[in-house]
């Protein structure tokens, strides 16, 4: 699903150049649930941004579902993001003046799907995250966990190849964190490929594979015994 070869990225800060990714080789198979770990400054967010086509690498190759991701125009990148990727952010990033169902339907709007079908699909995904009865509520009327579930529904609504979650539990307490991880695990059980960036050990161990980044290189890449989050959820 994801093929990365010898990926380099550096940022220019005035006269200094900061080498953030120093040759990443990495691949993800269909249906995997991968945790990308590392302390801050390890390059994990940069990697996720490149994977999410929000940023471009200086060198190296990136294939997504066999499609080379290279020299994309902003328009093309937007279309690929819409088609291939679903984003889940630490701070949810729901649009505050749109209610839950409108937020979920937004990626479908950019896919030019008709209004009625959009509503149906959005409602379907809201139901899957257990928030059907909250469909017409604004984000400000939802709890943190609910917001993140809406965000997950939104990420899934476009039926992407890969879900990218950037610290999905970073803004949540541990109980809600487990609820969200439980949901992510269930989505993964259905065969979806998911990448989770996190710095929390327990969250990482709820994935099936942990990739450890340090100073811009992968220092560890191991399969782990998945801890089911459901056992922590009442």
């Amino acid at each position: 699903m994801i093929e990365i070869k010898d990926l380099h990225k550096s940022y220019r800060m005035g006269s200094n150049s900061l080498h953030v990714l120093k040759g990443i080789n990495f691949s993800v198979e269909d249906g995997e649930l991968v945790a990308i770990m590392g302390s801050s400054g390890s390059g994990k967010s940069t990697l996720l941004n490149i994977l999410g086509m929000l940023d471009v690498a200086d060198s190296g190759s990136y294939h997504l579902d066999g499609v080379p991701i290279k020299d994309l125009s902003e328009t093309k990148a937007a279309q690929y993001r819409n088609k291939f990727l679903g984003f889940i952010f630490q701070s949810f990033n729901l649009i505050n003046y749109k209610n839950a169902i409108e937020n979920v339907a937004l990626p479908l709007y950019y896919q030019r799907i008709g209004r009625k079908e959009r509503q149906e699909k959005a409602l379907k995904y809201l139901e899957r995250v257990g928030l059907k009865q909250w469909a017409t509520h604004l984000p400000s009327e939802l709890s943190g966990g609910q917001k993140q579930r809406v965000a997950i529904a939104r990420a899934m609504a476009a039926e992407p190849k890969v879900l990218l979650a950037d610290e999905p539990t970073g803004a949540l307490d541990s109980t809600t964190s487990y609820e969200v991880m439980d949901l992510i695990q269930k989505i993964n059980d259905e065969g979806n490929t998911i990448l989770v960036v996190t710095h929390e050990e327990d969250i990482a161990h709820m994935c099936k594979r942990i990739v450890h980044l340090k100073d811009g290189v992968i220092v560890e890449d191991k399969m782990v015994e998945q801890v089911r989050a459901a056992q922590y959820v009442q």
Partner: protein
Amino acid sequence: MKQLFDRDTWIEIFQSIRKNRLRTFLTMIGVFIGIYIYIGLSGAANGLQNGFEREFKTIARNSMFVWAQQTSMPYSGFKTGRQIQLKLSDAETLKKQIPEIEAIAPRNVQGIFGSNPGVITRGLKSGNYSVFGDFPEFTKIATKRIYDGGRFINDEDIEQERKVCVIGERTQKELFDDEENPIGGYIEIDGVNFQVVGVHKFAGGGPFDNDSDIFIPFTTFRKLYNTGENVSWFTIAAYDDANVIEVEKDIKATLRRIHQTHPQDEKAIGSFNLGEMFNKIFGFSDGLIFLSLVVGIATILAGVIGIGNILLISVKERTKELGVRRALGATPGEVRNQIIIEALVLTLLAGIIGIILGAATLKLIDSLTGGGDFPYTNPTVPIPYVLGSLMLMIILGILIGLIPAQRAVSIRPIDALREE
């Protein structure tokens, strides 16, 4: 383009406009005031011009009065201080020599300029009224509205020196009973019987006009008062496209030549140029209309720039939202168009409200001033100007929208999302 006709685009835009009512209100107020001021000012200027036109519609715009005075320079053997007397033949000469003259009406009067008014009697009633000796040409220069059933003096009256007269409203009231039809009736002017052929409605406009004036044929007048070929003054109208000041100069020069006065003797012939005065008045209202256009456009411009400014701030505020949209698959083009359409919608909405309220204000002013003496009639803004200002707003709205739109697109989604 397709985006423009998509219902979802509009839902998106109205959601984002509705999201922050205060912002929307503040954004729109500049353009609203601009168009409101433009409509108000230019309507008022038009009303003033229409009012002037109404006031002076009874008299030709390019008209003037010319009369004779005393010379102030000796010339050709004549000493200074000689009284000049205009003659009927001067009219022919003037008309022949100055092609710009459309109509020339020699006039005589009894009752102003120091002469005694005519004594008018009818049965036991009598009064003193000004009596004018006139040609039919006079009505080509100053319209006389004659009541139904009557007429003004005509060519046959002149030829046959008929003893007919046109009387004023007041004269009618004072000499005739209420239900009596004055047409065909007889009045005595300085002892001579005249038949009334018309009653003129007083309209004002020219100097010396009165609602009691009596008009009789010029030829009858000179027999009655023994004025011979003498003419008190000429009322002259030039063609619309003629330069009235030049025509006035030509006329006076010609008259000086005829009456053998010094070519530089400005005092010998007196004149009053209504055309020049009209030009000044209409120049004033033209200037007002132009001023309102300039002020209006400038204010609209300022308002539109205000919209651009606030949209820039709002783009900054919405950086994150726009980043999320980009991450979810909005192309730069879609983001740009959304911002431009927002600018356009705000501009147009404000503009249309401004036009409606401006028109309502004009209507209100009209109803408050209507019917009065103040020269202010039908204050309107011509539709092409309204459409023109709307077009201007559309163009400016799009142009100003480009700035925040470009700013929105230039923010990379990753930077937008990183911003907390």
